[in-house]
């Protein structure tokens, strides 16, 4: 008992400063994740990498929709912008080294920030069904730009060069070897990279939402009239939220390009935008943990559902249709039965049961 008290007092500075706390949790999480990735098969590594970029996009979306209360059905389009930006940079730099990769991702984020402002300004003026429709149209229209300009590769898309493991800095290779006793290869590299950036992004988002900006977003979401009366510039708060969210989508798009190794308009369907929303709603709007869980579902469910369908005697063609049905049902059931999502419902349940405990103690 005493020891734990001592420990608590020792770690208090870390726990009381949100940034330090988030960074610490992030570091531990990364070590755990790295250990898991290192011991997984290449196939699972690709799934983890996929989960990472879905989670980054979902994290951005959950901040936008859950905290600032703006709906976007167009995040697939923003991912497309990020993917094309990263691909064009990688094409020019060759994409051989770690620096190339980070430059490409930074450009993707920057371009998406600009696009986020461009889209965010008109979007901030719209509400309800109008913003839903406008962003949905965006999701359909933006990928078609690839057919307009030759340098975007048309319907067939652009090949994405990815770094070869042998080109990575020696210290990374050694580090990975030291911790996992496995050579780093293309697949594990993308998984490590994805989760590293995912954790960075989530630490940043968690911090942002605890900050003054996050409080403003919540104020705007809960009651825009009072927020405006309290001196918050509604439009500006919304545009900032949209831009932050777009930057996440851009990073996710860049990572997606490297994982898929092809950037083509066909990747960015309405379904992508809708499944991102499904992930966010499923996990619980506004919760980063929820976004992570939702992304896990996105990365693993399709394969699971397809296998399930096939083992239930459906043909391969039919089994491919099981996934969207499951997504759709999940969306509907969550909204009808547990509008707070998995994390929110769990929280409520825990809050209720801990309240019950205190009651028992007092009586």
């Amino acid at each position, binding site marked *: 008992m005493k020891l734990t008290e001592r420990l608590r007092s020792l770690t208090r500075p870390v726990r009381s400063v949100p940034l330090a706390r988030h960074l610490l949790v992030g570091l531990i999480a990364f070590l755990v994740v790295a250990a898991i990735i290192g011991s997984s098969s290449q196939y699972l590594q690709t799934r983890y990498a996929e989960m990472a970029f879905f989670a980054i996009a979902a994290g951005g979306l959950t901040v936008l929709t859950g905290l600032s209360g703006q709906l976007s059905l167009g995040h697939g389009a923003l991912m497309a912008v990020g993917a094309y930006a990263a691909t064009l940079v990688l094409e020019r730099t060759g994409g051989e080294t770690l620096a190339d990769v980070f430059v490409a991702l930074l450009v993707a984020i920057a371009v998406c920030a600009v696009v986020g402002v461009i889209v965010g300004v008109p979007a901030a003026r719209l509400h309800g069904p109008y913003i839903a*429709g*406008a962003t949905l149209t965006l999701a359909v229209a933006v990928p078609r730009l690839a057919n*307009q300009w030759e340098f975007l590769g048309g319907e067939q898309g652009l090949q994405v060069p990815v770094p070869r493991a042998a080109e990575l800095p020696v210290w990374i290779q050694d580090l990975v070897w030291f911790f996992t006793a496995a050579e780093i290869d293309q697949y594990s590299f993308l998984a490590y990279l994805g989760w590293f950036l995912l954790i960075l992004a989530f630490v940043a988002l968690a911090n942002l939402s605890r900050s003054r900006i996050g409080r403003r977003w919540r104020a705007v979401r809960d009651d825009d009239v009072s927020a405006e009366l309290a001196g918050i510039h509604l439009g500006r708060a919304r545009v900032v939220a949209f831009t932050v969210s777009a930057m996440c989508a851009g990073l996710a798009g860049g990572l997606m390009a490297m994982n898929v190794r092809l950037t083509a308009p066909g990747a960015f369907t*309405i379904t992508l935008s809708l499944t991102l929303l499904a992930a966010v709603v499923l996990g619980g709007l506004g919760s980063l943990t929820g976004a992570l869980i939702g992304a896990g579902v996105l990365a693993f469910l399709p394969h699971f559902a397809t296998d399930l369908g096939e083992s239930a005697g459906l043909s391969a063609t039919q089994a491919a249709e099981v996934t969207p049905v499951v997504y*759709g049902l999940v969306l*509907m059931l969550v*909204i009808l039965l547990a509008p707070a999502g998995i994390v929110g419902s769990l929280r409520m349940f825990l809050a209720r049961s801990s309240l019950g405990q205190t009651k028992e103690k007092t009586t």
Partner: protein
Amino acid sequence: MQQFLDTTLGGLVLGAVYAAFALALCLIWRSTRIVNFAQAAMAMVTTYIALSLINVDVPYWVAFLAAIAAGFVLGAVIERVIIRPVEGKAELNAVILTLGLFMVLHGLTALVFGVQHRGFPAPVSTNAMTVGDTSIGITPFGILTIVVVAVVMAGLVVLFRFTDLGLRMRASAFNGEVSRLLGVRVGRMLTLGWALAAAVGAVAGMLIAGGDLVNPAFMDPFVIYGFIAAVLGGLDSPIGSVIGGLILGLSLSYVTGYVGEHLAPLVALGILMLVLLVRPSGLFAAAAARRV
């Protein structure tokens, strides 16, 4: 000149179909303040029901009526079971719910009917008509499409303007509490609104499918274009919906014919943004009350 005429006529037919779709969205918006993103998927389901009937040699027009009836029932059931719990709650919930419904209907249809293209017959010729020696770019089926949409629109205007039922529906949508006090059975009116909308959607589905190939994705473009048409006109106005539909149909037809098919969604987006920025509640909306 010939091409311009043909493209214009093609655009009018396309616009009529968008208009029918926008009408259906408008009906639901008026009754429950919800945009139904599952509209196209519901119409796709009723069209497949009609196709199954036609394939067992049921006459076309009987199948047409069956599709309308199926739409009516489907709309009512969906409103009662799925939409009722979220009415009056956060806008976001309803939007996500209808999107979920869209995915489910889509997938289920593909599971039941398969994903392959199937030919869908038309009741009248789908070959171009000729004037003198030259053929013009409109088919008897295209003319039928325009006529049917005009009749549906006229019917709705009569219903809302001149009948007691229409008045009660408008009252329920406008202010549920007060209507209830006045003895209007509001819940029933809302269900009726959804049922009517789905029936109109079913008509649109039949008009789109006639003389063409259908697969479970054949209505997907209408999720978006129908919505844009409705917003162009202002979600509240049936006449606005029709005009919005025609504007969109013509614009997209010209873009596809003269510039390139891939630019159609971009042009649609451009039109939408322009209208929303100039008149955030659509072209034909009554002067919007400024929110505090």
